[in-house]
């Protein structure tokens, strides 16, 4: 049998361990380095950045990373596949080409960039043609917020990635590709899997789900006896060893930290799971209840038996729209009676907001150190709680009301309950809320627009 293809995860989100991709490259042989930078909230953040500066709107960490690793990737034949392009993949690709030249990879490196997932310019035409883009949870039609839409991108599958790899790209940059496509795209390319081989594609999706959150598959954020996981400072990110028949192993580099066990992999498999029998992607619908998982020991988990079915006639669209403003203020109250003081301060603050006639869609009071994460399940505060952080957040459509709220936190220090501190950071910032609107669209109206451009360094 031919050698398995080693597909290494290097980032689980924009903001992940900057050294992880380098460790994946230097820790042992790999064939692909896949870097997932996008989450639902990330697209909204990138959209905000592009609105301020049209030359950005992508995962900027990717550029200095590529400057660092480009020569080695080209020399060793390691291909990089990433959705770092965010809402501006072409700008990202140009920056990466420049980074490649600076790093001395000029004349030898090809970047494939996937375009066509941006629906913003076509939105009114699509709505006029009857594509209502109803919110997937609330069923509300997009028309309700059309004038506040900032971006609209379709989730793409692996077809453009496969096309880019077939065209000789060393680096593939996409916008809103599904996280899993970054991993199974290389499998389809390497093994020539046909697009109707649903079981094989479904296995690729499972592999992609394992890879897409980086170290969450290798002991990171693992609730199963977390204290037993070794060397987390140098945690190894997951590596999928893919085979043409659809079976694969999950492992990590020898000597790296963390662990690959049935527990660490299972916990990642159920992460952000919906109906496990119907894990919908643009290319296949995978059934996670068919996964047969074996812990082979030595940081190696074997997965086989995955079944899948055809994809749906729809693609998911990620729309970002302006949804008002919010701000979060906090103060720290110390023993004695820390929780009682925090609650009293919150009551005073709310009365002042009412007297000022400020209306908000929502005011949320939490007490960090007591109930901010588990709510009523945390029970009553312990009698001698040493300290708590009062955290008050407001949300509303009126920016000026939210701005006035940010000026009402600090006065509590001199006008409210005692033994209060933690206000040195100044007034909280007013943040514009760019919200996420998931919708479905008939795939036949968007797929013809997806295209791969090649740029040579």
């Amino acid at each position: 049998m031919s050698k398995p293809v080693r597909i290494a995860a290097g980032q689980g989100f924009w903001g992940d361990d900057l050294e992880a991709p380098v460790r994946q490259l230097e820790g042992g042989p790999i064939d692909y380095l896949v870097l997932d930078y996008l989450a639902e909230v990330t697209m909204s953040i990138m959209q905000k950045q592009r609105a301020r500066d049209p030359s950005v709107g992508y995962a900027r960490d990717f550029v200095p990373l590529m400057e660092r690793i480009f020569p080695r990737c080209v020399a060793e034949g390691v291909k990089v596949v990433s959705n770092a392009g965010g809402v501006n993949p072409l700008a990202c690709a140009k920056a990466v080409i420049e980074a490649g030249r600076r790093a001395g990879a000029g004349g030898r490196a090809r970047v494939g960039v996937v375009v066509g997932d941006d629906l913003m310019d076509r939105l009114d035409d699509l709505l006029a043609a009857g594509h209502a883009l109803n919110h997937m949870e609330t069923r509300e039609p997009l028309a309700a917020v059309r004038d506040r839409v900032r971006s609209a991108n379709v989730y793409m599958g692996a077809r453009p990635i496969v096309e880019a790899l077939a065209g000789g790209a060393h680096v593939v940059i996409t916008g809103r590709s599904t996280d899993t496509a970054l991993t199974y795209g290389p499998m389809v390319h390497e093994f020539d899997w046909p697009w109707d081989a649903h079981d094989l594609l479904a296995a690729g999706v499972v592999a992609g789900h394992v890879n897409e959150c980086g170290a969450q598959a290798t002991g990171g954020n693992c609730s199963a006896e977390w204290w037993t996981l070794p060397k987390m400072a140098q945690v190894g990110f997951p590596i999928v060893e893919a085979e043409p028949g659809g079976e694969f192993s999950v492992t990590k580099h020898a000597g790296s930290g963390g662990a690959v066990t049935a527990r660490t992999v299972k916990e990642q498999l159920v992460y952000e799971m919906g109906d496990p029998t119907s894990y919908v992607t643009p290319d296949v619908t995978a059934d996670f209840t068919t996964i047969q998982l074996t812990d082979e020991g030595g940081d190696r988990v074997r997965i086989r038996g995955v079944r899948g079915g055809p994809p749906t006639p729809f693609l998911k669209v990620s729309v970002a729209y302006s949804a008002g403003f919010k701000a979060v203020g906090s103060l720290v109250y110390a023993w004695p009676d820390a929780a009682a003081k925090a609650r009293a301060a919150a009551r005073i603050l709310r009365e002042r907001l009412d007297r000022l006639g400020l209306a908000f869609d929502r005011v949320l009071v939490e007490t960090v150190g007591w109930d901010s994460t588990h709510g009523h399940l945390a029970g009553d505060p312990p009698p001698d709680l040493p300290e708590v952080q009062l955290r008050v957040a407001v949300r509303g459509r009126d920016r000026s009301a939210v701005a006035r709220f940010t000026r009402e936190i600090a006065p509590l220090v001199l006008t409210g309950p005692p033994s209060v501190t933690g206000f040195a950071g100044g007034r909280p910032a007013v943040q514009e809320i760019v919200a996420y609107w998931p919708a479905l669209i008939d795939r036949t109206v968007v797929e013809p627009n997806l295209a791969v451009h090649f740029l040579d360094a």
Partner: protein
Amino acid sequence: MTSTMAVAVPLLELAHARSGDKGDTANVGVVAYDEEDYPLLVEQLTAERVKEHFGDLVIGPVERFELPNLHALNFLLHEALDGGGTVSLMTDAQGKVFSTALLRMRIAVPAEVADRVRGRGRHPGTATRTG
């Protein structure tokens, strides 16, 4: 399984869990430490009981899905994240710690199971049986 009296233990001692978000919905995946305990989880961790456990932390319905192949259950907690993502005002806007909130739930198990799992899920320095 009914040979001895049932004892209430925190789910923390029987299972580990991870949670995340999809919009305003949190998901909690619960995985049995020991395969033999999976049927207990299926029997005890009903969608209704999980909904009751969370109370006003989950406004919408709770859905449950079974993954017997992984000895796991997946719960969808609808309308649990104050609008979710960038809209939510919650510290845990992305539902990351709904996992341990569910692991607080007390479930009835036979006494021999309670003895076998006692203290599991807690750091050895802090191990106590509290819910």
